[in-house]
């Protein structure tokens, strides 16, 4: 179906892909900041197990964030 010369399905895809990518990248990075903050706090109070868990969470989420950035560069390269 077209609306004002624009494919509605394409427009819907733009909306959901953009929303997913935008929310995903911000949430991922916010969780990485959260993990880093908790890791520093746990290190200060000597809770080594918790510190390790939060450090792992922060690193994993930073890797996901980096993946998002690489995906973005790949889109630029494939245009």
């Amino acid at each position, binding site marked *: 179906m077209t609306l004002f010369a624009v494919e509605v399905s394409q427009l819907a895809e733009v*909306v959901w892909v953009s929303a997913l990518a*935008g929310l*995903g990248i911000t949430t991922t990075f916010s969780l990485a900041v959260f993990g880093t903050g908790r890791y*520093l706090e746990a290190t200060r109070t000597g809770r080594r197990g918790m510190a390790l868990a939060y450090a792992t969470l922060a690193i994993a989420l930073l890797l996901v964030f980096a993946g998002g*950035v690489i995906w973005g560069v790949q889109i630029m390269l494939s245009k």
Partner: protein
Amino acid sequence: MLYIIVATALAFDFTNGFHDTANAVATSVSTRAMSPRVAVALSATLNFVGAFLSLEVAATIAKGIVEAGDVTLLIVFAGLIGAIAWNLVTWWFGLPSSSSHALIGGIVGAMVAANGPDAVIWSGIVQKVAIPGLVAPVLALLVAAMSILIAYRIVGHQSPGVVTRGFRLGQLVSGSLFSLSHGTNDAQKTMGIIFLALVANGNLASTADVPVWVVVSSASAIAAGTYAGGWRIIRTMGTRIIKMDPAQGFAAQSVGAAVILSASHVGFPLSTTHVMSGGIMGAGAAKRLSAVRWGVAGNIVTAWLLTLPCSAAVGAAAYGVVQIFGTGTAGPIVVLTGLSITLALAFARRASVAGEAT
């Protein structure tokens, strides 16, 4: 004539760079993620690099907007003048507006003046300008608003120092991605125009590769424009719409990059200026509606609405003048001289007003 077109296209590329610097650096500068000079230097470098990432110039800016067979060098020249004039006017007032829409407007105006309204594909205008112009800011505003609410929820009870440093670091990455994407997209427009001029002049076959000097000069012009920095627009986007904290800056910038690249991936390119402005308003409005200076936002939206008709009017007027002098170089030289004199008078008046104020 070829030299004039190349020089005008590079001048447009330069205005495109300094006009759009704000999209990439305004939030980083206002949240102090980077110093202003470092931010524009990084953005200029990444714009330069970005221009080399893709050389797909087959789809020129006017494709699907005007009848391709009717495009002449004089129409391209007049269109560029319309776009440059609009970029300079909006920069003068510190208003972010789309350089692509200005270029489309300029070419449409020149085309109407040359061949009448039938030479314009009006459905293409709706498809490539009107709908994306509506979708881009609204989508970015909503996604940025939701993103900042989620971000505040996640980091709300963390130490402010960690949160500020974390999001400032994130802005380095999201700002860099934005600049790289801008260089890839926007330098292409100039390369396409110079390539078109070379083909029309018989220097190149339409199937030839883009000459290296075209790529290097386009990349250099957009990078130089970015480094020159449109500080008036940076001030508007960085501090006059909302006063941002690093989390808001990061949300606006990363949502902006995500929306632009996702839309590009789906094949529905959006204006970086519209997306970034919408993202900044969304990140501000979600915290507190009154945090957004809606008067400034209204001026920006008015500038967007005026972009196409105003650049078209200047493009049409420029074409009207050049065609009086025939198809030679006299017309373009007269128009460029007129534009230069107007600019000189505007700067002289500004200097005298500033002198009187002090």
